[in-house]
């Protein structure tokens, strides 16, 4: 399993990151005080639903926020000890792909449909490693082979539409590896592919990580994928980290009501088939229209008056992880024994 080979040296450090949509004084913060570190060889998963801020966190770290729409308004990001927040676009160009690479969500729109795979992989190699085109093409074939593309020589001449979703995802990964980055941000790498292919992609990420001690920040909504490869989990809700802990803890003793709700709503195994599943009421709030206090309070079965007044800080709980919950902070969240027990109360 991955995660066990983390050597404790933080490669990516993110501290109190804040990103605003609109002007500097905008109160719409898709990323609102997010902090975490990723060590070499470690996989940290960011879990959350659409609009929770996971992709915006990734884009903020990479300096790839859409211009004129969103901007980083606070916090600090460092890669391998070098602060990269606040760097100019030009300076970031020497960071992206070299220190930290970003594998975007959608392999279809991320590859140029009019250019061959060979050209799209060779060009960045020529930029990153000075050398002849011939050498770059040879490197490209090697790299495509490394990410498990069968017959890489033939794939060089293919156009993106001629490859399956899984193969396109592999091509993107190959492109991310060109600059031999220390950190990879993989944004929903398994969402666009089928379940049997998903497994191959995860195994591939794990084996590349083992080989090169890559620090991986995995962004996903799929709790099963997280359980498979992450050692640390951040749960995001409405722009904030609401729970932060080891994968072991977050899945076996979740300390935030939202995490519990998410886990329960996909727990088909402990529900009799064709009976109602546990479901969280309502929907995630809109950024411009957050409830006062805890953003989750309107959907929370444990909410108290204080939850509708004060924003809870991410703080230690009775468990090993951190949770942003007033009830958990007082140690009054009911013990998480099994989902069955909780469900019987509803």
């Amino acid at each position, binding site marked *: 399993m991955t995660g066990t080979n983390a050597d404790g040296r933080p490669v990516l450090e993110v501290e109190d990151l804040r990103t605003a949509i609109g002007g500097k004084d905008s109160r719409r913060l898709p990323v609102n005080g997010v902090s975490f570190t990723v060590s070499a060889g470690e996989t940290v998963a960011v879990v959350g639903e659409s609009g929770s801020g996971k992709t915006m966190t990734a884009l903020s770290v990479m300096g790839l926020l859409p211009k004129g729409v969103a901007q980083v308004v606070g916090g600090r990001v460092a890669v391998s000890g070098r602060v990269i927040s606040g760097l100019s676009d030009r300076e970031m160009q020497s960071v992206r792909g070299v220190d930290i690479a970003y594998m975007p969500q959608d392999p279809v729109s991320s590859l140029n449909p009019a250019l061959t795979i060979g050209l799209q992989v060779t060009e960045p190699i020529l930029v990153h490693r000075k050398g002849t085109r011939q050498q770059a093409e040879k490197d490209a074939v090697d790299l495509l082979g490394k990410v498990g593309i069968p017959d890489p020589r033939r794939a060089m001449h293919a156009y993106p539409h001629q490859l399956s979703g899984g193969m396109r995802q592999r091509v993107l990964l190959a492109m991310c590896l060109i600059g031999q980055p220390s950190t990879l941000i993989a944004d929903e790498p398994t969402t666009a592919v089928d379940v049997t292919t998903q497994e191959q992609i995860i195994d591939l990420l794990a084996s590349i990580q083992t080989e090169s001690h890559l620090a991986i920040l995995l962004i996903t909504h799929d709790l099963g994928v997280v359980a498979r490869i992450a050692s640390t989990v951040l749960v995001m809700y409405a722009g904030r980290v609401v729970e932060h802990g080891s994968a*072991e803890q977050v899945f076996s003793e979740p300390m935030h009501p939202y995490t519990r709700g998410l886990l329960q709503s996909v727990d088909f195994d402990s529900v009799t088939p064709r009976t109602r*599943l546990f479901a969280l009421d309502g929907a995630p709030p809109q950024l411009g229209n957050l409830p006062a206090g805890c953003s989750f309070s309107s959907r929370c079965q444990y909410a108290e008056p204080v939850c509708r007044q004060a924003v809870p800080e991410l703080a230690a709980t009775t468990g090993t992880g951190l949770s942003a919950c007033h009830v958990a902070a007082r140690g009054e969240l009911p013990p998480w024994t099994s989902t069955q027990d909780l469900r019987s109360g509803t």
Partner: protein
Amino acid sequence: MTSPGAVLLEVDGVSKTFNARSGGLGRRIQVAAVNDVDLRIEPGETFGLVGETGSGKSTLGRIVLGLEAPTQGSVRFEGQSIGAMSRRQLKQLRRRMQVVFQDPYESLNPYMTVREILEEPFRVHGLYDSERTPARLGELLDVVGLPRAALRRTSTEFSGGQQQRLAIARSLTLDPDLLVADEPTAALDVSIQAQILNLMLDIQRARKMSMLLISHNLLVVRHMSARLGVMYAGRIVETGFSEDVYRSPKHPYTMALLSAVPVANPRKERERHRIKVSGEAADPASLPSGCPFHPRCWLAEERCRTTRPEPRPVGAAGQLVACHVAT
């Protein structure tokens, strides 16, 4: 109403081949999307179809709805062949069969108010009644858990989950006997998925409606359906009672599919037995000879490469498996 014990929907030996060109302007090719499929759905029953992209599950759903004509085979609704129906009969049939698609953003007209969306089926079928219909719309919104005030708004003012509730309300306007739900939760967030599945369970139970649920998610299909079919390369490779197929899959592809579903629990996840299949799903434009799964199958023998396996009873009662080797 259908008489008890009768079969509502029968699909017999249905195949669908599309003509296409390889790579836009390339040579003409034939894409065998659905290949000799049988299935039956009883009144009040949910049948689940599970498969990966390109397995033919959505094409089969469209054939069942009469939106696509099969190249071969027949679909019968209460014993009547859909292919032999006149336009008038087809229109009648459409009242009794409804569909919910994956993406409510695309299946609801953003310029129509909720009232217009829900009234449309009544108008199309000449059933609009200025006294009774408005009351009916309110009831429908109650059933799917949307406020009655929604009638005056457009669908775009609602979240994804609420839009899917609206699409479900629309599908129920004419009291269908069969609902085809094609990936009804695939576009929704995890916390919303359970809400919609619960809603579908409640409705199906209250109305004794039959349902064909199409999904890539084996856990969803198993939870919702009494029986299910696993599709691969246009064929149903395994079918049976959901619990039997889930507890004791017999087709190697079903085993692989089940083993690939990660469990949201790191400890269970590590202990879980996993079968790794190599390669990718068969391309319906160039299907392998014999069993379409044989190039990826760890149990494949010579006959799997040459002879296509027909469904045969293996395992529990009602379990049919299209595999030479399965025991």
